[in-house]
């Protein structure tokens, strides 16, 4: 994976494949403590204790289409390269993946295109709600599709005009935080 936004998309898609109806994404760029934290939480079916113990092994996967699962292992590798860590918690309902990195570490991967990641998630899975919370320094941007869905009634979340609106909002929000230029 070239950047963190692709890792985030990958983990979030895992949650959706696990039957999640709500995906929470938190990106916290704590500049004072030089700590980058990414938390991806879903309310899918979770993992068994046995699977959780082996989840970072690349040769462990729930898939039946292939026998290796590299997603979490690669994200862990990216975290370790930047003096960080990746932890997976799952208690039967839902899964929470917490990743930390030293923000200024020379090997920290760039944030990448979070606008495309969040749009791909929402548009590709219009029945799944997404809460995206991005903090940088003292600024914060929050997008909660549950609020938008309530206003839209029976217009789907992936309706082109809605997607355009989301795209503008995400871009403006992340520009204000100086996440993107």
């Amino acid at each position, binding site marked *: 994976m070239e950047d963190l936004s692709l890792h985030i998309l*990958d983990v979030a898609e895992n949650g959706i494949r696990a039957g999640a109806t709500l995906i929470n994404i938190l990106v916290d760029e704590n500049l004072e403590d030089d700590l980058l934290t990414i938390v991806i939480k879903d309310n899918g079916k979770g993992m068994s204790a046995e699977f959780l113990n082996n989840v970072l092994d690349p040769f462990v996967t729930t898939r039946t289409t292939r026998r290796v699962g590299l997603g979490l292992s690669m994200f862990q590798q990216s975290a370790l390269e930047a003096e960080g860590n990746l932890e997976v918690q799952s208690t039967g309902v839902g899964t929470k993946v917490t990743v930390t990195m030293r923000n200024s570490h020379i090997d920290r991967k760039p944030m990448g295109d979070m606008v495309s990641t969040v749009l*791909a998630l929402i548009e590709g899975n219009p029945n799944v709600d997404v809460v995206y919370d991005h903090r940088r320094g003292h600024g914060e941007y*929050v997008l909660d599709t549950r609020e938008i869905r309530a206003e839209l009634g029976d*217009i789907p979340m992936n309706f082109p005009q809605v997607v355009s609106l989301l795209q503008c909002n995400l871009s403006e929000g992340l520009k204000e935080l100086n996440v993107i230029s």
Partner: protein
Amino acid sequence: MPRISIDDLKRIKEEQTGKMILRGGQFRAKVTVHMGTCGIAAGAREVMNVFRENIAAREIQDVILTNSGCAGLCAKEPMITVEVVNSAPVKYILVDKEKARKIFEEHVLGGKVVEDYALAIGSETMAT
């Protein structure tokens, strides 16, 4: 923080009220971008962006864009599946931005399969 304006959402809702095209689920075509780890690493998200940009630029309202997981042919990612109404679904392999534009133009809008990029047509093949 910029908020999504409630008025914008209401406007979209009002404009669409009565347009049965949505509620009947009568889409002209559905484009599924495979988004497993393999697809994402190979560029699936950028392929999805191309379809989104084309749909927005032409104000198309009856083409739906969606995601699916890994289909097991990781070496052939990015892969997409195009389903045009009343036709068999077609899987395209090794899709990049340029191929995506052509597939959108010729297959999604024109209804003609882009055979050069399709996974397999007509004969037995090995997916290696």
